[in-house]
């Protein structure tokens, strides 16, 4: 039984709930003005929900081209890049869509909320001003999807992170404590130094008398029920009865600030403190939603959401930890159950079959898995596969009939994510009819193996388990990554930057191959136009290369000028170091557009950083396959991929003329002598 609402009613209900929006999809837009009411209704929806789908819109992804996600990202570097992104960019829209199974209707009910958020500096906090970065391409992208920047900046809901709140409270506490301490202190001093401060003591005593006189007069007046009559004429100008916060109070005129401090009423100070604390509580704003998600321990569903989770952490909890391990363990504390639909779709063979091997981008997955929802229920009869029904409820008005919403609007994206998840669960054989409402969906045995897995990096398919901290590469079941790629050994990698701009990956490879032989370099990868990764075939070549480069830099004799590497060192600005230095540079808070400038800004003044010895522990040796060519186009959805300028599989070496090969042999021999 399905109830259809007349379109007009639907439209009106919808347009009355939101001030301005599209008429197509029922979405609750939440801004400053309706935040409080929306929060209280959302509270009930989340408490009743089986799972909550979320999505975020940010002002950018990467703060510099070289901070983009690469195949050559070790997990710790990947985390640093995500951390940098989450710290620099702002979240401007937050979609929350709680899904609840309605056993009567045999369908899911969801309440998609679209929050516009914008952090304002509402409290007088000391130190740095709030600022955020905008990536011009991302802003353009949002504009393409008609993002309403006015709604965000003019009317967005502000927030405070837990850390900011603590800091502000501490600040308030210390302000009021300090002052009382100070005044107490000064009073003590006064007593200690009797001789000099007798006038102060006398003044304080006189004040005490006058105050009690005033108080007594006030009480007397109240008893008599008559008007307040100042009984002390001599101090009329100094004492004036006023009302402070519904309490009778006196305003004090004609005293010096020192005198004022002596007679300051403690009660007033407490009132001020409470006021300050209230205003801090009031500016928590959107964080209430996050606190709710965390305290309810609901299953959170996102699509490729590692970055989203990092944003949530840095915006609403506190500064991101320095290492991925710490981050994962604290995330798990705040959100014990997270499911990533992108991993779910890629790792399960049933779902892969359902997806018909199409891309796992959110909109694609939505249209493939939930065509009846994507097109509205008008076309239900077209679909033959068993489909999960979803109804949308906004402001107590349900609908199961709508037009498609605006993609990349957080509320709609969250809705799509939830639908994809519900449908995927049904394909996995989870029967919502059997599922008791008290049981947490996250504990369902069919889902258990997918819970808390997130793509650390979609680019190289590395998955991290939030509950155990284990990292795995995408399972072999994934038929999209069936190719075997050479594993990346990070101790075999050298980063080179500041070389002459006309040198391309191929030239650099040729240049190094001339010294160490044709099989020495596995690949050369452009980080950006000013820097490359050179992957050697053996780890000890890294230190050899760095030693050689260093000695060539030092000696400027004709032999080093004629050395095959001289081409790379031309200009005298070429720097080289091991992968660890790359990590170090990634951890900096500075973001220059070009890598070479970044290295300079980080304060690197050397030209070669030598590696001490090659007996390094092999802990970073990761056994994962990495795609050598540009990976599947869907990853452009979140992270734009740079063109992989890999030369490992091409026949570049065979293009070398035989002369050059002989040349390189000679050089090697010459070196051995």
């Amino acid at each position, binding site marked *: 039984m399905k109830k259809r609402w007349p379109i007009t009613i639907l439209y009106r209900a919808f347009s009355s709930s939101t001030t301005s929006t599209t008429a197509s999809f029922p979405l609750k837009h939440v801004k400053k003005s309706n935040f409080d009411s929306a929060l209280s209704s959302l509270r009930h929806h989340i408490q009743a929900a089986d799972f909550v789908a979320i999505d975020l819109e940010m002002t950018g992804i990467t703060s510099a081209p070289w901070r983009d996600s690469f195949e050559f990202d070790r997990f710790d570097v990947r985390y640093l890049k995500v951390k940098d992104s989450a710290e620099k960019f702002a979240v401007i829209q937050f979609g929350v869509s709680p899904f609840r199974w309605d056993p009567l209707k045999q369908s899911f009910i969801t309440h998609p909320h679209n929050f516009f958020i*914008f952090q304002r500096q509402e409290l007088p906090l000391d130190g740095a001003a709030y600022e955020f970065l905008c990536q011009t391409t991302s802003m353009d992208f949002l504009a393409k999807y008609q993002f309403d920047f006015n709604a965000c900046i003019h009317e967005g809901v502000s927030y405070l992170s837990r850390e900011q709140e603590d800091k502000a409270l501490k600040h308030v506490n210390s302000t009021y404590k300090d002052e009382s301490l100070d005044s107490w202190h000064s009073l003590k001093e006064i007593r200690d130094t009797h001789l000099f401060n007798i006038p102060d003591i006398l003044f304080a005593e006189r004040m005490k008398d006058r105050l009690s006189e005033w108080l007594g007069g006030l009480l007397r007046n109240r008893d008599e029920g008559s008007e307040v009559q100042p009984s002390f004429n001599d101090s009329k100008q100094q004492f004036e009865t006023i009302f402070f916060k519904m309490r009778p109070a006196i305003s004090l005129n004609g005293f010096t600030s020192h005198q004022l401090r002596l007679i300051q009423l403690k009660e007033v100070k407490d009132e001020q403190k409470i006021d300050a604390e209230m205003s801090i509580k009031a500016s928590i704003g959107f964080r209430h939603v996050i606190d709710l998600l965390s305290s309810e321990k609901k299953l959170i569903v996102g699509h490729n959401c590692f970055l989203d989770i990092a944003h949530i952490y840095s915006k609403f909890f506190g500064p991101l930890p320095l290492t991925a391990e710490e981050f994962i363990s604290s995330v798990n504390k705040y959100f014990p159950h997270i499911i990533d639909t992108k991993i779910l779709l890629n790792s399960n063979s049933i779902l892969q079959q359902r997806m018909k091997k199409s891309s796992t981008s959110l909109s694609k997955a939505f249209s493939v898995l939930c065509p009846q929802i994507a097109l509205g229920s008008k076309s239900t009869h077209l679909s033959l596969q068993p489909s999960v029904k979803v109804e949308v409820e906004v402001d107590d008005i349900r609908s199961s009939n709508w037009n498609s919403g605006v993609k990349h609007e957080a509320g709609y994206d969250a809705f799509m994510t939830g639908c994809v998840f519900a449908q995927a669960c049904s394909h996995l054989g989870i029967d919502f009819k059997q599922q008791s409402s008290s049981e947490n969906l996250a504990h369902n045995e069919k889902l258990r193996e997918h819970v808390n897995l997130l793509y650390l990096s979609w680019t190289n398919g590395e998955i991290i388990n939030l509950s155990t901290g284990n990292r795995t590469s995408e399972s072999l079941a994934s038929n999209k990554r069936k190719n075997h790629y050479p594993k990346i050994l990070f101790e075999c990698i050298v980063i080179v930057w500041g070389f002459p701009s006309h040198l391309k990956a191929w030239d650099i490879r040729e240049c190094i191959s001339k010294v160490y032989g044709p099989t020495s370099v596995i690949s050369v990868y452009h980080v950006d136009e000013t820097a490359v990764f050179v992957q050697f075939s053996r780890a000890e070549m890294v230190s050899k290369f760095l030693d050689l480069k260093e000695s060539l830099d030092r000696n400027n004799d004709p032999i080093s000028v004629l050395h095959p590497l001289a081409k790379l060192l031309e200009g005298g600005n070429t720097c080289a170091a091991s992968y660890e230095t790359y990590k170090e540079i990634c951890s900096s808070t500075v973001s220059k557009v070009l890598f070479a400038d970044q290295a300079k800004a980080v304060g690197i003044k050397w030209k070669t950083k030598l590696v001490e010895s090659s007996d390094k522990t092999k802990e970073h040796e990761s056994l994962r396959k990495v795609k050598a060519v540009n990976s599947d186009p869907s990853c452009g959805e979140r992270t734009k991929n740079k063109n992989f300028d890999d030369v490992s599989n091409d026949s570049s070496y065979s293009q070398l003329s035989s002369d050059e090969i002989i040349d390189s042999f000679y050089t090697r021999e010459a070196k051995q002598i």
Partner: protein
Amino acid sequence: MVPKFKPSPLRIRSFCTKTVQQNPHHWPIKQITKTNFNESLSEIKNHISSSDFIAVSLQNTGSFSSPWHRVSTFDTPETAYLKAKFAAERFQILQFAICPFKLQASKVIAYPYNFHLFPRDELKMGMPSYSFTCQTSYLTAMAKEGFDFNTCIYDGISYLSEAQESTVKVRMGNPMAVDHATKSSSSPALSVADTVFIERVRSRVKHWKNACTDSDIKTEAALVTSLRKIVLGGEQFGSRPSMTIDVCSERQVQLVLKMLEDFSDVLVPLIIPAKGGGTQAVRAVLTSSDEDKDLLKRELQTFEFEQNKRVRGFREVIDLISASQKPLVAHNSLNDFTFIHSKFLAPLPPNMNEFICSLRLAFPQVIDVNYLLKDIGPVKKMTNISATIAYLKNRFFAPIEMEIPNQANENEGKIHGHNVVKICQLFGKLCSILKITPDAIESSDDFLASAINRYANIFYSLPGSSQEPTNEEIRGWTNDKRKVSCEDVVFLWGFRERISAGILKNMLQGSHEVFAEAFNVRMVDRSCAIVVFGKPGLSNTFKNVMNSKAVSGPLREMVSDGLKAAGYETYQRVCSSGLWESALADALDKTLASHNCLSEAAYETKQSEIYLSNELINLAEL
């Protein structure tokens, strides 16, 4: 099939919240966006060329991130510039208001325009900027004024700086006509290889040219023509046949160009730039006659012109202003012109002098109204233009009539950019008070120019002094003109947070004998204070005491609690090394650390000694 979502203009409009109109102003300021930019250009051009002055005013996304990043009274012109540079490189201009105006006795005739800008990566090259920083307080303030961010981001005009435009030209690889400067470079003696190369190319060109001209007469089968093309390497350039000659070096380019001069009657050489700079090839285009040759050259010119115009965007206006060589009037010139330089000219140079030289090439005269204001008398620096106008109104009788002949805005949107008109008004008032306005309209522009010249190009000036400041002086705290050498200034940090200058001074007093003499303490931010010694030499004594192991007395206790001190040169190094930490104390710590581990003494002392020996600041009684 259900139709896919398509945005219609109606939808966009209903979707975007309309900003509420508040405090409507009567000044009709033309609002320019992408949609009406091209049609307005010629009008702007006319107004610029007929104006006496051009006022400019910017609305940026932020200015300083931490209290100490703000240009302050203890800054030398050099550190002030470095601070302005840091801001200009990170923040973005969202509105650029220009106002060409004429000054006629007590009348200002102004044509104000307000351009909405947004950096758009139209060429997918990370230009004009990859990203930019926004300060929430700035955006919130703009929102309060009713700024429409949707108009700005959807419909803002993009731009490229001069420097970016030249890189783009190279990367786009458009053929360039050869100008005579590159052609007539001296050609050294030819080597054998050169001669062989030239002769080989010459014969190829000759064959190709003959074949092309022959085929005009003979009618050949299509197959033969195409075969001929393949063999001879000919191709089409537009409707004309052309031939590409590959070159390996700039030397060969010169050789080919020289050789092609022999065919200059019909062949026009073009240079094909390589992606990474330099030349990829030379292309010879065959023309049928002299007229045709001229036509080709004109075609190339218009093509380049159109493309450049598209790429330049808003910079077109900057170029118009620059080409007019008119004096510019600004309110906060150091801030505004570092932004203008970095967004529209080139990346900012490392120091103030280079900046001024570079800027002067584009804008020969920049007048800061704040500087004119200083000539009137001991006026405190006012940051608010309206307050300044009100102040002058009360003190001087200088009525200025504002005439704005612009037509009222056709679009009913909010009018922004009032500041630029206020700057015109203020400037008019100041000129009339200072009697630098020609009384009669017929008096020549030259007079005005020379009178105004006195005030031009001062980006950073001392209060109260009317002569151009030298590089060695720092502005004073307030009105006091007591000058203090940078040498007598010591930065102090590592004390407990939220301490007041008074308490710190009390703590220092009696902690050591150097504090027996008069000294002043001023907080820079929460983490750091500056101490100014009244007697020369004491600062060095103090620094030495702090560095030595044998600190005694109460000072010892403070040092063991973390108190640190450094001279002005360390502060200068902080600014020049770009360590813009949010607390000055952290920045000083980092600078000292990097300095110690490097200990390249030669470079440092040289720089700081020259500066410090004669650097002065004005300090008031604290």
